[in-house]
């Protein structure tokens, strides 16, 4: 158990994400979205399990969702993991979720991991970095994936790119790339960035990066986490408020003393009582401080190696991208499926019609049937789908129990459970909601049933 190294895991499974609108619903929460025909959450849970972290606190937003997730976990992981699930309100922020479980935290270090993270980074490495540096917080940073790894088939990728570029987080690192010196999430950046002089003075130099992404995996020191959560009730989100707050206050000896509740723009002044070279200590000073338990907080960064896979599913585009990665070479090892000789994953119970082809980097789920002369390229097809003749599916995700009639062409789209594509439908960059019946030609649309509310 992780207890041995004094670690506890909090898994933020989320609820019904708004960013993934047509894909998720009350019936299918984000955590259970099929990614390579496995629920999204299973990737995270399996990663935790492989790291020997077997007691996990799962925080879910919303009562119904919690029920579903609990049921699924107890079915799938009953014998392997001891999972404790906690429910918070649907609109609760991530920091609120932490607050909800704060009383259950006992270990020295808390690993907070987001349920939508798909990565193969050894968690031990992050934890080891955290321990080694005696940090109060360690964040996982990942080089920005170039948006739309799909070979530019869709027109919207360019748009998406531009959008992403404008909304990048700004992350400041010290020259050795070990410490976090600054972080501002895209949502909160106005035209100005405020960086404290004391931090610049302490680190000597600050590098500002916009090519790094904060991947929602943090290790916190419990005492500091609890202190801050308690002391600053204004903090609602981990990424947008808690982490920048900790980074700002890392040179102070005590995180909560003299801190006003965080204002909306987060621009309060901290007094500068810090010695200029506080972080550069001679061994003797360090030694003498060891006894007194040096209380200065350090925020570290763990930057993912280029050869590791790390991605988050937080938008429709990223959902398609990650699906392709999972089906393709980059991350197929995460799924645990056997790869066939033609470099794809086809379930033995699926049936292929005459002259139908399934290209490399594809997945075909259990019990799916295809008609004649179909072709599937770089796509994931779920379980028990019925696909007619002459259907072309490219760069798309088709979930379970979908019916696609003859002559459809699907490109860069997501088709949710139980949807029905009638004959000769052409979809390009569309999202089709659950149980929706599509007819005609669509491009770049989100097609879903209007909810009652």
């Amino acid at each position: 158990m992780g207890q041995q190294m004094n670690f506890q895991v909090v898994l933020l499974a989320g609820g019904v994400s708004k960013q993934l609108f047509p894909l998720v619903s009350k019936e299918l929460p984000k955590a259970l979205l099929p990614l390579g025909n496995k629920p999204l959450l299973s990737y995270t849970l399996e990663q935790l399990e492989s790291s020997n972290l077997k007691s996990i606190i799962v925080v879910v937003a919303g009562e119904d969702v919690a029920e579903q997730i609990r049921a699924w976990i107890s079915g799938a992981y009953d014998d392997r993991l001891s999972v404790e699930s906690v429910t918070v309100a649907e609109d609760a922020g991530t920091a609120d979720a932490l607050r909800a479980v704060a009383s259950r935290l006992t270990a020295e270090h808390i690993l907070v991991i987001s349920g939508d993270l798909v990565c193969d980074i050894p968690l031990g490495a992050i934890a080891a970095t955290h321990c080694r540096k005696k940090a109060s917080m360690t964040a996982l940073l990942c080089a920005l994936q170039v948006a739309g790894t799909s070979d530019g088939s869709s027109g919207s990728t360019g748009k998406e790119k531009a959008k992403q570029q404008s909304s990048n987080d700004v992350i400041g690192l010290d020259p050795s790339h070990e410490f976090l010196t600054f972080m501002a999430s895209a949502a909160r950046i106005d035209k100005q960035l405020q960086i404290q002089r004391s931090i610049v003075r302490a680190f000597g130099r600050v590098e500002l990066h916009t090519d790094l992404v904060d991947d929602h995996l943090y290790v916190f020191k419990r005492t500091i986490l609890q202190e801050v959560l308690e002391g600053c009730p204004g903090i609602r989100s981990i990424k947008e408020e808690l982490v920048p707050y900790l980074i700002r206050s890392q040179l102070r000896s005590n995180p909560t003393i003299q801190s006003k509740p965080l204002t909306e723009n987060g621009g309060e002044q901290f007094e500068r009582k810090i010695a200029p070279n506080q972080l550069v200590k001679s061994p003797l000073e360090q030694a003498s401080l060891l006894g007194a338990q040096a209380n200065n907080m350090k925020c570290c960064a763990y930057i993912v190696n280029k050869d590791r896979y790390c991605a988050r599913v937080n938008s429709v585009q990223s959902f398609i991208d990650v699906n392709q990665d999972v089906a393709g070479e980059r991350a197929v090892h995460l799924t645990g499926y056997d790869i066939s000789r033609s470099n794809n994953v086809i379930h033995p119970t699926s049936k292929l019609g005459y002259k139908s082809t399934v290209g490399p980097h594809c997945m075909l789920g259990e019990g799916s049937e295809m008609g004649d002369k179909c072709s599937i390229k770089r796509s994931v097809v779920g379980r028990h789908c019925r696909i007619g003749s002459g259907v072309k599916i490219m760069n798309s995700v088709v979930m379970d129990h979908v019916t696609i009639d003859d002559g459809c062409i699907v490109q860069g789209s997501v088709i949710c459970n139980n949807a029905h594509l009638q004959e000769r439908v052409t979809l390009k960059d569309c999202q089709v909601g659950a149980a929706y019946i599509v007819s005609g030609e669509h491009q770049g649309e989100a097609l879903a049933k209007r909810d009652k509310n």
Partner: protein
Amino acid sequence: MDSRRGSRFVIDPKIRQVGFVPAGCESENPNASSAVAAIANVDVNPTSDSPSPVMIPPRLADPLPRAAPLPVPSPPPRKHTSVEIPLQGSYNPTDSVLGTSPPFSPASNGRYAGVPSSEGPDLSPSFVSRASSAMEGMSLREDHLGSPSASRFATVGEYAMFKQQQPQQPATAVTKVYASSLPQEPVQSFAPVGKEDSSKPLKERTTKAERRAKQEADREAKRIAKESAGAKVVEGEARASSNVVGKASRAQSQKKDSASEKRLSAVEKASEKEKKKEIPAPRMQFDDQSRVAKAKKRALIEQTETKHRVELFRHLPQFVYGAQLPSLEAKFFHDDAMHPHPAVYQVGLQYLTGDITGGNARCIAMLSAFKELIKDYCTPRERTLIRDLTARVNNNVSFLTTCRPLCISMGNAIRFLKTRIAKLQLTLSESDAKSLIIAEIDRFMQEKINYADNEITKLAVTKIKDGDVILTYGSSCVVETIILHAFSLGKKFRVVIVDSRPKLEGKGLLRRLLGRGISCTYSHINAVTYIIQEVNKVFLGASSILSNGTVYSRVGSASVAMVANAFHVPVMICCETYKFHERVQLDSICFNELDALVKIPGRKGLSELEGWSQSSHLKLLNLMYDVMPADYVSMIITELGMVPPTSVPVILREYRKDPIL
């Protein structure tokens, strides 16, 4: 007085065993006749031949009487002694111990300085042989000078170190040491021009058989002393001779013993066994395949040996750098019985990545981690705390060793901890025992490291005067605090920081000192011969000081000290006594630490060295430490005072009787 001094010279190495010679004992016997003085002078002179490095200050105080022998031509006094000696040779040894005949007894008795009381009753053939040899004339005294002193000491482990030193150091070593403290006169008086040729024929006259007889007599006497002194002495000796060299010499002496007289008493056999128990297992030699394989099985970290090993250093671990950290990180959350305590794990990681460097910092980090370990420890059922905790500590220590080889001071600290655990009373409750050990660890850290550093700083600051130019090498935390303290006292001085690649540790020191406004000069080690000309004091730190006065320190320190010595700049080593070790090391090859050359500082864009560890034609070697002979060291500043390097064994003996307090 003179006669006593003379005899002292002859038996000099034995006095050195005792160490500090109080000045009083030399002036015990002030009433010396002129005739005796003349004889004594003859005795004095040959000492310049004796290769042992002598450094007992009181003798230097009055150069006048020693200057006297110069004009004295040797032949007449020598005849005089030859007449006298038979008388002395046949005397009852007990009388001489009582000092009835002051001028001569020390001379004859000197050989037995270690065993005064046991000598009396023993009337073994060796004594007869000695007497007879004395009868032959002139041989007694000359035997002292003539017989290679080294052979006399081969029997006792403790002398092994002197034995090594002696052949190495030429007669000039003596004069050199004096030269630093008392400029000219004694040196002149020591240059025996006429004496040399007069003593040489004497040397030749003793036959091999005679010397042999003498040796055996000595050995016999020592054996008796050993028996009488009991196990304690044996223990002390064993500890003192824990090094490999000492062991070898003992084995040699054993062989000789059995050859000459095959009567090893039962007592001695028992003591031999005890000795063996006392000797710690020899250091892991990495060219010993079977042991390496065994260690590998135990180790948590996968270590792959480099393909391009340097043959000369096969006995030291040479691992591929970079493979260790990922494998260790991957196992972070794993748990098995071997898993180290989280705190220890953390420290190990910090060693591995170089976040903690420096002997003191590493030692403190390790001890703090062990404190955590003990705090969290609870004895499993059906186990005793003492044994189980020792095993646990051993596990954790071996984990740390795989992260980075422990330095000598840490070895001392671990030994301290283990003896504390082993000495716990069985009746103590678990919580009491734990708190007791934790308190002991705290005390060790406070006394041996923190207070020691403060004391050293206080002492060393007195050596810094206005207008001084102080040279230091690399980055030693003690030296740094000394400099800062001296600066805060308002002393006006300048600091020269000499540094060397690849670590360039001095840069950090330079930055910190400049931050305080101390004027500094920074130079690399290749310029040390130039920069030394403006320097008048050298302060160096040390990783360890070995019992022959050798300073084991960051590589490069020895060269700095050598240059300083050549330029007559005093070299002061600042080192806490807990870093002292009984081991003897003569070169930096037999034991050292090899560091992987990963980050080589240089201009950006230089790609010549990229991937050089993969090149099959290149073998990388980067020693971490080197060994500075005691000759170069003017003074060692410890928390117990400022001592010459020859006093290290004394400190070791006197302050660690109770194994490392």
